[in-house]
């Protein structure tokens, strides 16, 4: 039984933010489905841990810091032609709106939105992505469907991603490039480990999900794999909701 419409064999996939969380899970799951994976991240040690976790041998890594756009062109020049790109690099910074400031807002928009946009633009311009390729952004239900207290800056960055993804999907359709987002609810990653909220508050929050828990990184990765694979070749401009039912209520 070898039929698998979700296979990524012979596809080369770039994954940003691959040293932890959703990005790491995406890289690992892609490798298990046969992709050649190029992992990007800031932290060399953690990125190497991801690289060591990948199945198969045809994988490489790039140390890239997206806190500016300076490293994007050298990164793109170093890449082979790609069949898929997954933008996972991102962070959050909880601040009630009256504490929002230009420095923190600029920093979060840069990594979560501007760098992902300019990397995509550079890949298209240099024709490193083309016919039958797929771009996937990790967005969020926060900023697209809902938000949570103190999450203004993160929500803005994810809302921006959804906006640009729609335009990219339209503008890049003639080139055969598909562009989609996944919009996850809360997922168990390091992003939760800043301990701003207590364990009791987390447990209470999980209870708001109809499926009574947060998601796992692999559960988001599997939605991304659908969007990378030929199973979704008529899908562009979509938001795949992966939220344990949170937005039903």
């Amino acid at each position: 039984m070898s039929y698998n419409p979700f296979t990524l064999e012979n596809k080369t996939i770039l994954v940003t933010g691959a040293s932890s969380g959703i990005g790491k899970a995406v890289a690992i799951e892609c490798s298990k489905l046969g992709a050649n994976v190029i992992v990007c991240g800031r932290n060399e040690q953690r990125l190497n841990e991801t690289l060591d976790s990948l199945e198969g041998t045809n994988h490489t890594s790039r140390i890239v810091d997206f806190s500016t756009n300076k490293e994007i062109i050298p990164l793109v020049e170093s890449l082979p032609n790609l069949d898929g790109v997954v933008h996972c690099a991102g962070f959050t910074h909880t601040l009630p709106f009256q504490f929002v400031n230009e420095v923190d807002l600029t920093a979060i928009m840069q990594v979560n939105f501007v760098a992902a946009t300019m990397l995509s633009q550079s890949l298209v311009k240099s024709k490193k992505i083309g016919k039958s390729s797929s771009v996937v952004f990790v967005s969020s239900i926060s900023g697209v469907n809902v938000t949570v207290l103190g999450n203004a800056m993160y929500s803005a960055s994810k809302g921006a991603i959804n906006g640009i993804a729609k335009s990219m999907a339209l503008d890049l359709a003639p080139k055969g490039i598909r562009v989609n987002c996944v919009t996850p609810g809360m997922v168990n990653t390091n992003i939760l480990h800043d301990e701003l909220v207590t364990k009791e508050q987390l447990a209470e929050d999980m209870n708001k999900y109809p499926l009574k828990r947060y998601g796992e990184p692999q559960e988001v990765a599997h939605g991304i794999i659908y969007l990378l694979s030929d199973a979704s070749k008529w899908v562009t401009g979509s938001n795949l909701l992966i939220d344990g039912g949170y937005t039903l209520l």
Partner: protein
Amino acid sequence: MEIVDFVEKMAEQFDETDAAVFTPQTKFKELDEWSSLVALSVIAMVDESYKVRLKGVDVRESSTINDLFNIVKARAQ
């Protein structure tokens, strides 16, 4: 850092509660207006004014404003 300034900054995080209510002995989490949003505001205020990153547990384990002040003072440079 001075307790008097800290008390004033704590009071600023509340909109409905009279600033005169606030003293070092105020049990701030027992005020009617206390909420998870005010808690986030307190954490953000401490970060902005004192460059100290409080955790949720620090707020949970503090009863009076003075308790929280002592945590911030111990970590402030």
